[in-house]
């Protein structure tokens, strides 16, 4: 084993034991399955404390510069820390728009001043960030954003409405996509990108209740809200380009994200564990031949996706359609997840009709809530229908 590998393995052991020792106990209230579900103050306080603790221990933003709260080590360390957090199923690091979108962006193209002002607060969870891209009338159609930003001396005056603002009611800053030039020839060229403060007059948020019954998103209304002109990132008209840039950080620490878990990963092993105690016709459910066949199909589907992730790294085995595996991943994983969770409810028999809040609901209604939440992934970030178009056009070359 060479020295680097050895050091990484030692690091893994170190993180693992730290997590073991510091993983918080069940707080007695519902914890979010993703950063899109923080709906109460107690949830927020809990998650803020946890993220702060992870950062303090040195396991968040590890590849970011030292002076801004990072440690300037190789992103591999962060990836290992993330893996261990997933393995031990610790709570999420909830400030995801900061950690995974705004932060890496500022690191990449921000000014020194911007870095100094924003980065450390993102990691420490002191400054919560939200995202202002989608608008009520143009769900999947970002290029059509209508929210206006008009230059007015040393300020921009913002008017319009954003929707699906995660943590909108808690956020200090928003990454905001707004139209500075409604007359631009290409609609994309009229958009600009702002690091906008939320605590100014004229910004109001209305919590959106989700189909789960929980909160976590807001609608955000701008009514002549004035934000300082230096909130503009890059130049006017570069908004679309910068917004698209934020999407690349999804690929994790290697791509610049600060790390931490953004959501609770639910896999087939969780399902099998849950169903091991369910009875059907007096026998173990997992002995029913039809159930077995469906479980085998689910296992195969999840395994195929895992294997695909491995194969994607082997050019000789991906030259048919080189972009097939990466571009179809979201579609495949989120649709699989939705079906797997739906199956998990059905398979519970009578218990499947229970919900969060029932003391006898299996795993506290985990699966029911997870199924309903699964639509945030099959709808958000481009619906499955749009994902299928993307794969058809960009992988298979089918016409628009």
């Amino acid at each position, binding site marked *: 084993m060479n020295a680097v590998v050895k050091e990484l393995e030692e690091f893994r052991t170190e993180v693992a034991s730290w997590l073991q020792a510091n993983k918080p106990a069940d707080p007695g209230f519902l914890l979010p399955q993703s950063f899109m579900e923080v709906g109460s103050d107690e949830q927020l306080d809990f998650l803020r404390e946890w993220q702060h603790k992870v950062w303090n221990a040195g396991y968040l933003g590890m590849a970011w510069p030292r002076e801004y709260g990072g440690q300037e080590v190789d992103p591999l360390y962060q990836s290992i820390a993330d893996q261990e957090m997933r393995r031990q199923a610790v709570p999420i690091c909830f400030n995801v728009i900061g950690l995974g979108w705004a932060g890496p962006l500022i690191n990449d193209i921000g000014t020194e001043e911007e870095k100094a002002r924003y980065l450390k607060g993102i990691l420490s969870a002191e400054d919560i960030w939200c995202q202002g891209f989608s608008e009520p009338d143009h769900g999947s159609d970002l290029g059509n954003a209508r929210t206006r930003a008009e230059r007015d001396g040393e300020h921009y005056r913002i008017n319009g409405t954003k929707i699906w603002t995660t943590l909108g009611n808690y956020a200090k800053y928003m990454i905001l996509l707004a139209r500075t030039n409604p007359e631009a020839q290409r609609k994309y060229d009229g958009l600009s990108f702002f690091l906008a403060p939320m605590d100014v007059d004229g910004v109001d948020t209305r919590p*959106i209740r989700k*189909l789960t019954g929980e909160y976590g998103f807001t609608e955000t209304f701008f009514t002549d809200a004035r934000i300082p002109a230096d909130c503009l990132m890059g130049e006017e008209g570069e908004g679309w380009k910068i917004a698209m840039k934020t999407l690349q950080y999804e690929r994790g620490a290697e791509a610049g994200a600060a790390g931490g878990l953004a959501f609770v990963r639910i896999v087939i092993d969780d399902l099998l564990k849950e169903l091991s105690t369910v009875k059907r016709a007096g026998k173990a459910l997992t002995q029913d031949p039809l159930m077995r066949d469906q479980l085998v199909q689910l296992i195969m589907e999840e395994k195929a996706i895992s294997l695909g992730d491995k194969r994607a790294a082997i050019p000789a085995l991906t030259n048919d359609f080189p972009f097939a595996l990466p571009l179809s991943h979201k579609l495949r994983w989120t649709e699989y997840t939705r079906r797997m969770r739906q199956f998990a409810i059905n398979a519970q028999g009578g*218990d499947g009709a229970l919900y969060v809040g029932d003391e006898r609901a299996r795993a506290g*209604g985990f699966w029911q809530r997870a199924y309903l939440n699964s639509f945030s992934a099959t709808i958000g970030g481009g619906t499955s229908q749009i994902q299928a178009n993307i794969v058809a056009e960009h992988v298979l070359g089918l016409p628009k």
Partner: protein
Amino acid sequence: MSVLGNTAINFDDEQAMLLEYATNFCDAIGVGEIRARLEEPQPYPADTWQQIVELGWPGIGIPEELGGSGIGISAAVPVIESMGKVLLGTPLMSSLLTAQLVLRADREAGESLVAAIAGGSIGTVAALESEDWATSAIAARVDANGQLSGAKRFVANGLAAQWIIAVVTDEHGNLALAVIDASGVPATNYRELSLIDLTQRAVDMSLDGLTATQVLRGPAVEVALRDYRLLGALFVAADATGAAASCLRIVVDYLTTRKQFDKLIGSYQALKHPSVEILNQVESSRSFIYHAATLVDAETLDRQAEVACRMAKAKATDTLAFAGDRAVQFHGGMGFTWDCDAQLYIRHAQWAQQQFGDAQHHRQALAPLLLDD
């Protein structure tokens, strides 16, 4: 003889009038009134039950001499389908099933109870003891003095019911039905459930310390229970068919008004063709429930009626599950909100799937009826 067996659908003018009346009655209430009461103790308007009683619907399937309507139990299908359309979760289904169970188990002994139900007293059946609706094992007991013990789960409308029929085994180990007067049940015996479907109400219930006011016994109990389960399956199928049809309506409404990329989204085949699939499944469900309705008015349900009830349940609740799931998805971001009605249907679907056994369970029960001689 074809494996398709009997394929009759009869629906006379009287039934057509009832369907039309029930549709109008339920539409006049509307989903909005239900939505406003999701988190209240009673998930439907205060005067609705009284109106239902005045319409005589709790007397469906009950002979006139017992205060019933004198019409067959099949008449429940159009009524329940109409209620399903607006997710009207009244105890009607529970009451009707209670009366059917008692009538079929021991008409004579059950006369006064059935008459009370026909008159508007709410009844329910406490049959299940675990999440396993496919088991036939019953652990709850009644002793020779009518003393009850054990626990029941998923008792529909348990808090609203005045009469609860608990399925038990008696001191000889035989199946029996214990009639419980709810007025004598301590509140601590009930535990109200948090259901995924907020248009429905149910409890878990301890029988310990309770005494049956009456115990129905005899060989007819087992057949009566079988018929109760089949009729229950049919009723939930009817409800789910109505709900799925409404769900399709809201999808179509959205697809014909919402624009994306400057086109009405209903013009995209990715939404259009699955909507046709929902339609076709709703149409199948509707054919199955009215076919079953055609066959269930006999004194005990025969093999063809059993096949029909099971097919109805197997098709209709899968249809609703598919419709509800697609309704959320096709509403995009809106679909992910509490305010979008799609959530009502996707939640109702999870509930409906679990009442009286899921689709797979009924297909497994159909296999020997269809494939073995």
